[in-house]
């Protein structure tokens, strides 16, 4: 037997039931709590729960925060600009997916 055979890893699926906390989102996106709260204020992500200590974020938040952060950092746009670009990107993605269905 090959002793280096990699064992099968099981992770947590981040869905509606297993959403992540503010601290986990900060760490995963390398942003501070203040920066995440700004993105909540921009309406880029919507936490479940009444206040930051109890906030939980669903999977799509991770993707949206990372893209917004990358756009801000790499292209020098501000938070409202990044939010606008993100929404347009998601719309393009949806249109592309519809186009793919029509073309097949």
């Amino acid at each position: 037997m090959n002793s280096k055979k990699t064992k099968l890893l099981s992770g947590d699926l981040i869905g509606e039931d297993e959403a992540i906390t503010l601290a986990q989102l900060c760490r995963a996106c390398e942003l501070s709590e203040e920066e995440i709260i700004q993105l909540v204020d921009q309406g880029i992500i919507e936490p479940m729960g009444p206040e930051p200590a109890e906030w939980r974020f669903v999977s799509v938040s991770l993707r949206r925060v990372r893209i917004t952060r990358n756009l801000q950092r790499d292209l020098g746009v501000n938070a409202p600009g990044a939010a606008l670009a993100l929404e347009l990107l998601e719309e393009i993605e949806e249109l592309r997916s519809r186009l793919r269905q029509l073309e097949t």
Partner: protein
Amino acid sequence: MEFRDYYDILGVTREAGADEIKRAYRKLARKFHPDISKEPDAEERFKQVGEAYEVLKDAEKRAAYDQLGKNWQAGQDFRPPPDWDQGFEYHGTGFDEAQFSDFFESLFGQGRGGGRRAHGQNEFHMRGADSHAKVLIDVEDAFRGTSRTLTLKHPQMGEDGRPQLQERTLNVRIPRGVRQGQHIRLAKQGGAGIGAGEPGDLYLEVDFAPHPFFHVEGKDVYLDLPVAPWEAALGAKINIPTPDNRLDLKIPANSGAGKKLRLKGKGIPAKVPGDLYAVLRIALPPADSAAAKKAYREFEQASNFNPRAGMGG
């Protein structure tokens, strides 16, 4: 290593002014940004553009680079001449240098070894950084669960204090019921900690590979279902594929093209599972034999169907 023509990468001449270089960089950075562009090599192009700008925006680095002369061609095997950069002084950059090419490192990476930063803003954190990767699965995998073997590249501190890319292979269980865009978090499988620090977590974003006849929206699955004109017109019971198994589906009489037939709960499994929608497409039988042609003629005679009735014809 290969010589890199930074002017060519930015599409400017060697005489270009600072403003022109900045404009060219901003335009290309938007064009090739990996979150925006769908080009397969966008990430690589974006890095090259960033590296070129890092050198050409800085008067000192640009002067040193220019001194290498115009004799080098992009892609040519390159060794920096000894003492090539004498008399030039560089300052630290804000860019993540682990991203830059060996070519850049050979020119501008020396003499700062001691002060190098491990990873972006993490210099004072002991815990390793969380890392991110995508995992591509098939629609069927979401119904049954599966496992995937991934090879990941991690920047890791080498013994000389420089970050190096290391490969790691992981075998990961993909649970049943996973959906497009969801993440799987693998605790402590991210970047290595510094010192005694714990490793970070690894986040895997799930992406479905395109399928020839299924597509997924959230928990719901859509099946592109071709039917014969007589099946759509007269009704029929047909056997259809689902990502899980095969099922019998009743097509009601007089179903038009585009009609959606819902199979409740046959979408992606969950506490409240998604639905499966069969979307009808009428396939046209070819008139490729005398019998088929005759049948079409007879059908024409039997019906007074005008497909252009709404066009005032």
